[in-house]
């Protein structure tokens, strides 16, 4: 199990080059949009796109430099960006988080948070249903008190709150 985990998912160098390329594309996007608005000098001063245009140029320039440097970086090629084991750990947190963020819109923040915390407690912490329910619902109730009642900061709510007339 640990042998598998130590295998690299991708080398540092691969990611370095990939990210440099992405940054270059971002810079190109910035240059394109700035040029579209107008990146030259008007009579009354720089046009709207003047500043972003040069920013875009610097982005592209620096990313090219990083790319070239990265090509010859042998140490980075040997070093893993992340091992399979590490990647698994990171994804096991990241994927539920993405789902959680997506669910907030449909279920409201409190219900989504309860499910999110509950998921981790059952899956990772191997807790029983009762403890999980107590903690996850408890945290949501405390947050509700804290934000809705005390700070008076409204957070997104969903069908459950509508049902309970807590809107």
């Amino acid at each position, binding site marked *: 199990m640990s042998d598998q985990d130590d295998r690299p998912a991708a080398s540092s160098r691969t990611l370095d080059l990939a*990210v440099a390329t992405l940054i270059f594309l971002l810079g190109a996007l910035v240059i394109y949009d700035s040029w579209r608005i107008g990146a030259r000098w008007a009579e009354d001063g720089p046009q709207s796109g003047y500043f972003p245009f040069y920013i875009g140029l610097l982005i592209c320039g620096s990313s090219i430099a990083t790319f070239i440097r990265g090509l010859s970086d042998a140490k980075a090629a040997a070093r893993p960006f992340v091992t399979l084991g*590490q990647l698994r750990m990171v994804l096991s947190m990241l994927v539920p988080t993405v789902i959680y963020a997506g669910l907030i819109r449909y279920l409201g923040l409190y219900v989504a948070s309860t499910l999110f915390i509950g998921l981790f407690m059952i899956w990772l912490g191997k807790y029983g249903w009762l403890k999980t329910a107590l903690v996850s619902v408890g945290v949501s109730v405390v947050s509700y008190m804290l934000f809705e009642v005390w700070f008076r900061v409204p957070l997104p709510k969903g069908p459950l709150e509508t049902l309970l007339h807590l809107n």
Partner: protein
Amino acid sequence: MEEINALMHGFAVALSPFNLVLMMVGVVLGVLIGVLPGLGGANGVAILLPLTFTMPPTSAIIMLSCIYWGALFGGAITSILFNIPGEPWSVATTFDGFPLAQKGRAGNALTAAFTSSFFGALVAVILITFLSPVIARFALEFGPPEFFSVYLLTFCAFVGMAKGKAMKTISSMMIGFALAAVGLDTVTGQLRLTFGFTDLLQGFDFLIAVIGLFGIGEILQTLEEGLAFKGTNAKMDMKVVIQTWKELPRYWATALRSAAVGCFMGIVPGGATPASFMSYGVAKRFSKDGDKFGTGVLEGVVAPETAAHAAGTSALLPMLTLGVPGSPTAAVLLGGLLIWGLQPGPLLFVEQKDFVWGLIASMYLGNIAGLIVVLTTVPLFAAILRIPFSIIAPVILVVCAIGAYTVHNSMLDVYLMVFFGVMGYVFKKLEYPLAPLVLALVLGDRAEASFRQAMLMSQGDMQIFFSNALVGGITGLALFLLFWPLVSTLLGVLRARLAQQEQ
């Protein structure tokens, strides 16, 4: 002296019961934030910022800055007990702090860390008390070209001090500028970089970026080592504290040196993180026990902690006087000031005396409160980290999500937070520095505005940036810092070649 009078007036403002309560709450929250990974100083302040919208600005900033001090103190707790830096600037504290804990001397290490932090912050606050009115008076002479040159200096300093990562620093910084440019251009009314998405009209909020980059990104990185926080126990009682206090005066030279490094790095803007590393390195070089550094030497804890706190505190000096934050957290505080409608910069000292001196007075009080709180509650905070990961991790993420949402009551911000989180994780691993990105995001609009105003004044002539001694001096320094590493590498190569020829 005028400053002392102003300071006394500030104390009067700060010592209201409401503000004192906020101070204590702030410090406790701050330590909690500093202890929990993912809720860092910049991040924690960013999350709690929207909650202070209903408070008067003076009280709000007192609480937020106390959160900042608390976080500065709290980062050391996890570094020493768990070998997990609670804050980026606590990394250097782990070098000697954790070995000390492993040797059973956690209490000594913690006391040393807290006391050094207090000392560093105190030096910095005294510096702020006497230096800021001077700089503010000086800065009242500043016009757009001068302001732009100061911004330029800030950014060039980052690039110049980047040591081998100059290109990545530039990329990071420029991405920050690009993100700042998204949205409505206030001068011409044109939409920039929005590509038809009306949601992007207001641009990217630095708070969301900070929560994502520094919060989620850091959690993801901590996760690599496994889904648990393992740590050592700490025994804290008065005996240990006094015993350590008796030992500390021995390191007065280290403390002063580190405080100096810290104050410099806070003002120049480097921030608390580089300050802690630099002073660790310097202390190691100058100390008699230099080679024992890394095995658990008290001095190895004194140096980074003093510097980090001195830097973190003195970062507020340029923020208040010039409107240029010296660290990511100061950048967030600056953002807060702007949101409350206050203009950081020299006018603050003239028009908002209550606010400024109330804040400075609260720095003294907040640090004392912080030291007391932290010395007495270490076991409590250490226990919090023993809450199983499966509970505490999702709770931290929920807090981050709430924080992101409450900025603009927008779900988009929550999604952006996750995106920034992944970006922060990848950037950190590939050694793209995040501080320039955040700084550029916060300052981008103002830097651009100063540039455009300067250009309007000079009708497009770049020479305005060298038009008088002040502007020319700062711009020159900026360019020097920018190109110095290049020049020094070339000189090094030349020297090596000459030496070869002589052989």
